Structures are given as C-alpha cells and as structure tokens.
C-alpha cells in the first residue's frame, strides 16, 4: 500500500496524469500466459519490450514503430538498435521507462516477477508471455497480432512457421531414432553448461533431428561434469557461446575419444540469436541445426 502511494507520488512529481483512462472506445480485454486479465483502453502505441524475442515478434508483425523502449539485448532487426534502452528484466531503469509514458509493457516468464508487480503498481498495463515451446511462440504471435490490430498478419506469420516446421519434420521423420546424431550443446565452458530436454534448445535439437546427450538433466540448463559428455559420446558438438573454439575443445583432457572430436564435427560460432531465442526466427535456427546434423 505504502509502495503504491509512493509510486503515485512519483507519477505526480513527473507530471503524469493519474486520471483513469476511459474504458469504453475499443477497449480490449486479453488474458496473458499467467492467466491475468488485462484490459487495454485502445490499441497501444507506446510499447516497452523486455525480451529480444518479443521485440522481434513486434517487428515481424509490422509494429516496430510502436516500440518505444527495449532491452540492451534486443539486437534484431537492426533498426531496433535506435530505440531507447530501458534496462532488462534484471535491472530495469524505471525513471527512463516512466519518462517514455508507455501504454503497454511486454515481458516473458512463467510466474509473476517483481518487475511485473512494479508495473501493476505503476498502473502500466503489462502482459506476460511464456517462452518455453514452439506453441508458446505461436500463441504469443497470435496475441500480439490481436493487440497490434493485425490478426491476419499474425496468422500468416504462424502459417509460415508451420510450413517451415513441416518441411524439417518430414525430413527428420524419415530417419529412424537410432540413426539420429547424438548432440552436445555447450552453453558455457567454465563451468560446463548444458541444456536439458525441457529447455528451448533441447526442443530445437529434437525438432532438427538430433538426440540431446544431456537430455536427462532435470532442469532446463545446468552446470554439468564433463564426464557426462564423455559418457554420452556425442557425434556433434555445437558451441553456443563465444568463449570456446574448435581447438580448445580438441585439447580438453579426456575428450579425445569423443566421436565428435575424432571426426571434427565441432561447430563454434553459430548464430546464437536464431538458435537460442524463442522468437519468430526460430525456424531459421532449426534449418541451421538440421543442416549441421545431416551434413553430407
């Protein structure tokens, strides 16, 4: 209570209007992935995005000019770099944000975050999206299409994704399980970070026709002992962080007998943004992975 009073006071100081907006003309009531019901008074024109994947979606739907604030990680499409950076989920810059007078904030997450609570206290409408599966991506696109008032564009974007998915799936389905390559996806070298099947990259590996050697990790991402990679004996190693090169992996103690090291199928320097980001470009990432897994 005290806190919300404080924010109202802040808003008054900044000269913002705290008068309730009219809830009639073209009011839009939506339910986000947390099950929260949010009513937007009109099609929002000043949007803040707290995730690169959401920024990409807004641009893909042609709503880029409605974005006023983004995170420092939002690097696609290139023109996004001209927008104001308002920090990220971990360190939001509220002062800068309030000065942008947003009428909608977009963020990701599967449970309420402190940031979400602050937006609610500031009376800025906020929508929270899950970003764990392909279905999450398509649902977010659909929802944003509704909010940005371009549902047909969202539908065609989703149809395009389905089409690309179907092409890869058709190719992958022809390969029996025991002939698919075993893949180790390295997300960090010190400590060695791997992804479980429940992570987005874990799903990407499966969709692209690979088998994740660290699939049994209970959490999405975890620091793992290098022994597990030796035991899993991957046919392919993909490096999804900038610290490690091919030569460094070759020289690691105990890794000489791993199939991927012996055959040289180590892939550093991949475009992490299209492979790891649950956004509209994920099919591009799938194509890259599929190309690597089934390279002649």
């Amino acid at each position, binding site marked *: 209570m005290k806190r919300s009073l404080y924010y109202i006071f802040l808003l008054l100081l900044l000269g913002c209007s705290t008068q309730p907006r009219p809830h009639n003309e073209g009011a839009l009531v939506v339910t986000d992935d947390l099950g929260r019901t949010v009513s937007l008074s009109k099609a929002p024109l000043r949007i803040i995005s707290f995730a690169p994947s959401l920024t990409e979606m807004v641009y893909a739907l042609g709503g880029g000019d409605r974005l006023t604030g983004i995170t420092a990680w939002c690097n696609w499409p290139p023109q996004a770099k001209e927008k104001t950076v308002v920090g990220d989920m971990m*360190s939001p810059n509220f002062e800068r944000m309030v000065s942008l007078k947003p009428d909608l904030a977009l963020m990701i997450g599967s449970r309420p975050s402190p940031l979400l609570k602050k937006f609610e206290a500031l009376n800025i409408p906020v929508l929270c999206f899950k970003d764990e599966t392909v279905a999450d991506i398509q649902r977010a696109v659909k929802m944003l299409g509704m909010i940005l008032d371009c549902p047909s564009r969202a539908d065609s974007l989703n149809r395009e994704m389905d089409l690309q998915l179907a092409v890869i799936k058709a190719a992958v389905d022809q390969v029996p399980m025991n002939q698919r390559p075993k893949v180790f996806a390295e997300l*960090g*070298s*010190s*400590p*060695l*970070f791997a992804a479980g099947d429940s992570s987005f990259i874990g799903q990407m590996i499966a969709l692209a026709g690979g088998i994740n050697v*660290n699939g*049994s*990790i*209970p*959490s999405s991402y*975890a*620091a*793992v*002992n*290098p*022994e*597990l990679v*030796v*035991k899993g004996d991957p046919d392919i190693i993909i490096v999804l*962080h*900038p*610290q*490690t090169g091919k030569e*460094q992996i070759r*020289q*690691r*103690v*105990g*890794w*000489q*007998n*791993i199939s991927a090291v012996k055959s040289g199928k180590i892939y550093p320097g991949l475009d992490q943004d299209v492979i790891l980001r649950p956004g509209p470009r994920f099919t591009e990432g799938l194509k890259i992975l599929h190309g690597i897994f089934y390279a002649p």
Partner: protein
Amino acid sequence: MRRNIKAWYYLAPLSLMTGLLGLASGPAGFGLLSDPQVMAIRLPRVLLGMLAGAGLASSGAALQAALGNPLAEPYLLGVSGGAAFGAALALLMGLSAGLGGALGLPLFSLAFGLLALYVVYSLSKVGSRLPAETVILSGIIVNAFFSALIMLLLALAGRQLQEMIYLLMGNLGMIFGTQSLYLLWVCAAIIVFCTGYLWNQGRNLDLLSLGEQPAQSLGLKVEKLKVRILLASALMVAAVVSLAGVIGFVGLVVPHLARMIAGPKNSRLLPLSVVLGADLLVLADALARTIAPQEIPVGVITSLLGVPFFIYLLRRKKRNGL
C-alpha cells in the same frame, strides 16, 4: 602420546581409501578402470581437491597459532577477497579465454591476493610490531572492501556472471580444460613448499603459543615469523582461489578437528590438518559429483557435512570434559 600414533595408524589407510573413492565415483559411473578418458577428467580434480584441502587446512592451522586466535582462517586475512576479486576481474576482462588466457586468471588472482596481504600488513603494523588483533581487524576490513568490488563486478558482468558465481561458490570443476593442467603443478609446488615451511616452523609456533613476550625472550623473532606465516598462507590461498574458487569452512574447522585428535602441538597438528583437509575436500567433491548430474559447488557440501559433525564433536568434548 599413544593416542596420536593410533590416529596415524588409522589415517593412512583412510586417506588412501578416500583418494580411491574420489577417483572411482562420478556421474559417468562408479569404477576405477572404467574408462581412461573419464579417469583423465577425474584425476586432476581429485589432485586439486587434495591440494586445496591441504593448503587451506594447513594455512588455517598456522594462522590460528600465529595470531593466537581460534577464529583465524585463511579467508579472514582479506587474501581470499583480493584473490577472488583478481580472478573475477580477469574473467570480466575476458582473460580466461583465448590465447595464453589460462595464465591471466591465476596471475591476477595471485597478484590481488598478495596486494590484499600487503594492505593488511601495512594497516596492521604498529611500529615494528604486528599485533594479532589489528591483523584480524584489517583483514576483515580489506575483505569487506574487496567484497564490495566483487559485487560491483557482478553487477557489471553480462555473460561472465555464471562463471563468476561459480568461482565465488568454490568449484573443483574449474580445473577442467587442458590449459589449466600445468597450473595444477604450479599450485602443487606452491602448496607443498609452503606447507613444508609451516610444518618446519611447528616448534616455533608452539613457542609463540606461550605468548609473544615469553617467545621473544626465548629468542624467537616473533614479528619475522608472523610475516612469513602470513605470506605462506596468503600464497597458498591465492593459489587455491585461482584454481578452485572460494571454498569456505575447510580452513577454519579442519584445524580444530585435527586439534581434537592430535592435541595442540603444532608439529603434529599441521601434518594432521593437511591430511584431514585433503581427505575432507576429496570426499566432499566425490559426493558433490555423484548425488546429481549437475555440478554442485563443493563448498556447499563441506559446510553441510562439516558443520553438524563439528557441532557433534564439540558437544561430545564438552560432555567428556576433555
């Protein structure tokens, strides 16, 4: 006297078993000869565990004697804070990756560890004396300063955040990667040399525990000894931090465990601390590797296991009126 001999009689095979257990257990399965590649990964880790445990425990024992304070430990001197800051700075600057980068982190760690010691030394020096209380106080202050700097680095870190956090939690898995293997030998040399020196000073430390004045009148150069003990401890701690991060608990509690077994005589206490420290850390890391597929920081295990055990020993000691 006889009790001590009996302790060694049990400890030698126990240590051997601990080492073997450390080598035999891991996420890739249990067994000594299972796979030479797996062994190649485990062996450096077990060696590092032994070295780190031995170094931390012996420097703890020596510091407790030299400063006459049962709460003295290697991390109290500010050296760990300095070394951890150096290592984190090297990570932030990207010195841990790339060419010759493997050297950057330990060098930074060592340099800042020694810098911290130098600051503590100059802060606590009163004339030509080095009073124990001021050493401990300046150690705490310097540690606090470096903790603040570390937090600043954590706030500035982007991609390196993960690495930094694992460094601060203490992790023997950092040894993985061929570039740092030769560093293991450098670390081993530092720890063997410094531990040997401390052991060699066991009798002098006993004298010092009589009190500074009596020791001085018996011809001991007290301040010189203290400085050397501090330097040897700092070198070992910096070496450990550079390879395994900040592993708490061992340096503080293992010397007390050893004292319960071997009594207060430093010439016996120091080698026993070395053995117990090495065993404890290897055992804790074996457990950390086995209980989950994820890497669990070994510092968590040492504290979780060691604290209840230590409380049990303390209570038993009180009951028996030992």
